[in-house]
């Protein structure tokens, strides 16, 4: 690698870090897209154990496209964080899945550990993998 290329990479990562800082510092954290929020509330999408969002039932093409988009973005985040923590993508994603299931609100869907089926979250704690924190 040439020195110029190295410098460029450093500059690029510096700019990325600043950009990331800027985003993290922004007062209003980005909220769910209204379509996503509505689909969650309606139980059309739910949290899977692997850390990704799933379409409940066959869904619509639009719904599936939305879920795919979110999952691609989740995967990017998982990959970055997993590398930072010296873990595998699957390990990080699974851990995030545990937490995402914990954070579902009553009425929202998630995949229950004991049945492997889509289940509506109730007021009681969700049926999660026993390894979940």
């Amino acid at each position, binding site marked *: 690698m040439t020195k110029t290329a190295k410098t460029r990479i450093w500059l690029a990562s510096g700019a990325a870090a600043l950009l990331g800082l800027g985003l993290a510092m922004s007062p209003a954290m980005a909220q769910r897209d209204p379509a996503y929020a509505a689909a969650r509330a309606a139980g059309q999408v739910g949290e899977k154990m692997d850390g990704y969002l799933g379409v409940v039932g066959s869904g619509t093409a639009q719904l599936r496209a939305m879920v795919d988009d979110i999952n691609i973005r989740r995967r990017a985040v998982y990959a970055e964080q997993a590398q930072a923590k010296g*873990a595998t993508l699957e390990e990080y994603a699974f851990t995030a899945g*545990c937490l995402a299931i914990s954070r579902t609100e009553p009425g929202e869907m998630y995949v229950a550990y004991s049945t492997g089926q889509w289940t509506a979250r109730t007021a009681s704690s969700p049926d999660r993998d026993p390894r979940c924190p």
Partner: protein
Amino acid sequence: MTNVKLTTPAFRAHKPPRTGSNMNTKAGRGIMMGVALLGPILLAGCIKLEAPTEPIVIELNINITQEVIYRLAEDAGNTLDENSDIF
């Protein structure tokens, strides 16, 4: 078409003892062929193969240890908070 033999074939001097397979007799071959053909026909009539309605989920998470999950939990929690638009 039938084969008409003009002469009477000579009888065998002795009847050979039966071996394990009867494939070397014409009748035997007929029976074996019949069984071979009948098998798939019977099976085709009985077994219906249908594609599952739900996608098959293969669990690839069995190698993830609880220790690793606990180590990552705090960071993952922050990740969920910081990316609340996609979680």
